[in-house]
């Protein structure tokens, strides 16, 4: 997904680091082989980066400058809700939803280009105070959810799938906003991937709420 952008900008002191919220051995491999990324693709089976940066979904992104300073905290990486309008049998997307989704992605990628070229002068780089305001932070329940998730993952790895799954369920209960935790568990228990009915049921339960929170960026769909 990011390989083209990385190749375009890698000579400008820029890199992508992709972190996969995956746990089953081999899970992300076919995807990595298909994309042939040349930037680091890391496997984060315990969702540590989600814990550290309060990420709740994929794809989300954080912009970090040359000094290690966050200049845009965790946000949807140009992802848009368009998939919610897809035909769930044919998996086709209506033309208008497909267009808005593509525009959202292009707007986000252009903003990254602008940041890489202009650094702090880019309009997409938040001043410190704004970055702090926009920083999503965890609640006590979310912190506990990450501990429960880590315990569940450990138990599953060491053959205690039943109890492990119970801890993953507890993590999801404590942190209902995390699609990463919920979908990881769905994968672990073979409930199925994104096309399955449990997923759509949970998406539908959002009602007017977003699956991908709107990105605070000029030109982004609300």
């Amino acid at each position, binding site marked *: *997904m*990011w390989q083209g952008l990385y190749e375009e900008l890698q000579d400008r002191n*820029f*890199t*992508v*680091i*992709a*972190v*996969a919220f*995956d746990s089953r051995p081999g*899970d*992300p*491999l*076919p995807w*990595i082989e298909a994309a042939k990324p040349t930037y*680091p693709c*890391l*496997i984060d089976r315990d969702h*540590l*980066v*989600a814990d550290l*940066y*309060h*990420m709740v979904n*994929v*794809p989300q*992104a*954080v*912009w*970090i*400058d*040359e*000094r*290690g300073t*966050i200049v845009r905290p965790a946000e949807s*990486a140009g992802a848009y809700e368009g998939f919610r309008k897809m035909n769930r049998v044919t998996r086709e997307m209506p033309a208008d939803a497909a267009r808005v989704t593509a525009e959202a992605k292009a707007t986000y990628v252009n903003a*990254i280009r602008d*940041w*890489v070229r202009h*650094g702090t002068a880019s309009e997409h780089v938040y001043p410190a105070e704004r*970055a702090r305001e926009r*920083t999503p*932070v*965890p*609640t006590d329940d979310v*912190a*506990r959810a*990450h*501990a*429960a998730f*880590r*315990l569940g993952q*450990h*138990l599953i790895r060491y053959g*205690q799938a039943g*109890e492990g799954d119970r801890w993953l369920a507890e993590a999801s209960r404590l942190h209902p906003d995390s699609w990463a935790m919920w*979908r*990881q568990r*769905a*994968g672990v228990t073979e409930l199925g991937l994104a096309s399955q009915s449990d997923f759509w049921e949970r998406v539908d339960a959002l009602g007017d709420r977003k699956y991908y929170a709107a990105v605070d960026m000029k030109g982004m769909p609300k």
Partner: protein
Amino acid sequence: MVTLLTDTKESVLAEARVDGECLWLSGTDLEAATGWSPRPQGLCRGDVCVPLPTAREFVRTGQIDVAAVWRFLGKPIVHSDDGSVWVLGEAASDRAATLRSLQAPDFTLPDVAGRMHSLSDHRGKKVLLVSWASW
């Protein structure tokens, strides 16, 4: 034997003693597993020291109840049904303070070949940190 997980480390502790919701460790094991160590002024990690109230029994016969200490510090702690695996989490307030400092928290993770990478290896470059998944 107890396996103790923190967000950066997995330790197997032969001398640990579990008693219900208490997890008793030697000072040496505590420091090795968590970086926190008992000092006269309280519990310390690096330059940070947290005084422990003497009215409560955190220390007994040379061991420290890390579970009680963790709860006292407001950090999450969970354990498996049989008490053989414990996870010491980090508090939401500590995570929030770190994020609001805007200093990107470092991490070290393997790629598919098992090679370890740290965010800090890329200091001096702009980094787009992105999440993804196969699910």
